[in-house]
């Protein structure tokens, strides 16, 4: 029996769903190995008897919250794909609009403030009942996460293959630096660029540094210890405060900030 797969989207650009269609060369093999039964981006059928459900986008509206609970109910295995679904993603930047609280937070939640909503929607703010943006794990139990902006399509394929072979899938527990070294990329620190590679989870094959762009942490923080080390190193070796670097990390993973030092 081929596993029945569904792909869903919440608040986001749906680029991660699209990445599946971009598998091109492997797409036919994939379709031979699984049945895709529910995928708005790629087909019209809708079935709700699902083995593995992939979800991209963050939970950012009351409607998202309802939907993600519905997905959880109908999927034996639920997988968050992309930075939005895994970390909150770019959506969480809205928390910093008109911010008043510590670390820039507090634009929502506290006292029911909705400064960010007025910032985006002006006097029509009441028409758009958005909530704090959260990763889907903040609402339902998530079995696996495949972070990245967009999701790494090779990792998606490796994930599906692992599940089919009965192999446990685990995200790399090491930093992007490992993949830069394996690729033979010149470390961006040698060019004076403060890359987030040392604190970011690998699995992207270090694609950004390979093309000269610094890592922006779209796959999330690899460990708290690495971030503590970053705080010490940035101040003592590079004369930069961690907070400045956190501004970069916030681009994809502001929701993680609750856990930051």
């Amino acid at each position: 029996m081929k596993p029945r797969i569904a792909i869903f989207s919440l608040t986001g650009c749906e680029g991660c769903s699209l990445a599946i269609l971009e598998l091109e060369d492997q797409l036919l093999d994939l379709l031979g190995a699984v049945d895709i039964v529910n995928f708005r981006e790629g087909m019209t059928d809708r079935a709700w008897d699902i083995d593995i459900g992939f979800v991209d986008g963050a939970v950012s509206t009351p409607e998202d919250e309802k939907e993600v609970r519905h997905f959880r109910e109908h999927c034996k295995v639920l997988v968050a794909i992309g930075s939005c679904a895994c970390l909150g993603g770019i959506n969480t930047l809205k928390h910093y609009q008109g911010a008043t609280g510590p670390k820039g937070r507090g634009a929502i939640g506290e006292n029911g403030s909705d400064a960010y909503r007025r910032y985006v929607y002006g006097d029509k703010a009441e028409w758009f009942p958005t909530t704090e943006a959260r990763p889907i794990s903040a609402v339902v139990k998530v079995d696996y996460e495949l972070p990245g902006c967009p999701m790494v399509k090779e990792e998606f394929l490796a994930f599906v293959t692992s599940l089919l072979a009965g192999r446990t899938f685990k995200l790399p527990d090491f930093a992007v630096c490992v993949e830069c070294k394996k690729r033979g990329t010149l470390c961006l620190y040698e060019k004076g660029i403060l890359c987030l590679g040392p604190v970011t989870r690998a699995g992207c094959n270090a694609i950004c540094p390979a093309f000269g762009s610094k890592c922006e942490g779209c796959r999330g923080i690899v460990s708290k210890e690495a971030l503590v080390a970053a705080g010490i190193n940035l101040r003592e070796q590079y004369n930069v405060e961690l907070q400045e670097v956190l501004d970069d990390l916030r681009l994809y993973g502001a929701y993680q900030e609750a856990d930051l030092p």
Partner: protein
Amino acid sequence: MLAPPIPYKPTNAELYLPKPARILRITQLTEMEKHYELAFLDGHRLNHQPGQFVQVSILGVGECPISICSSPTRPDTFELCIRRAGSVTNRIHALREKDIIGIRGPLGHGFDVTEMHGKDILMIAGGLGMAPLRSLVQYVLDERPRFGQFHLLYGCREPKELLFTDDLTRWRESGDVNLKITVDRPDEQWRGRVGVVTTLFADLPKLNPQDTVVVIVGPPVMFKFVVIEVLARRIPQSSIYCSLERRMKCGIGKCGHCQANHVYVCIDGPVFKYGQLKAMREAME
């Protein structure tokens, strides 16, 4: 034209290849452990020493090190006790009799049984340590006239974690071994001893330090306390053997994963003399 490079013939290309072996018998030992009896498909024998291990493969899932729990004195088949702990072992637990798995080995450095001939034997097992130790217990029982007194102390956290309970009954009834068992946390049915394994030392007769070999297999926390009991009975350090567990990938002294201080547990061990172990601070941690 420049002479072409000299062709090179590899002599050991099968180093990492597992060989297919059939599962002949499966016994559920505890909630977490199953006992497997295996034989190679091509009929060759494992030819191992007690205390050695094999790498068990599920092709497409991976490989993991498992100690051999049967004695080479029963050479037609070999036995493994496998705890459900990761991807590979979970898959093995889902297999049935007659299924085929991959085996690479025997690997490592086992017990030097000839050094034990003619001696009194004291073995101490903690928890899953009974699995590798059983290969040696069986050896001593099968070659019983070669050995003097034989004491076996076995400690577990709970009665339901005791391994090879059928064997334990048989061994005790045979009268060939002075077997003592204790558990840390008894249940309602438990009628035996309660306490850590070192409490069993009180039951031992006086040991003859020059003629006793001691074998300790168990979790690292157990080692230190047991070694103190043994040294207190004036056993020379060169007569104390231990077996270690480490993360292993290659099993042949290359990949570095099992290294504890200066030794590679996979080829220098897993069996060590206590004298060697002392210089390995990480072994006791």
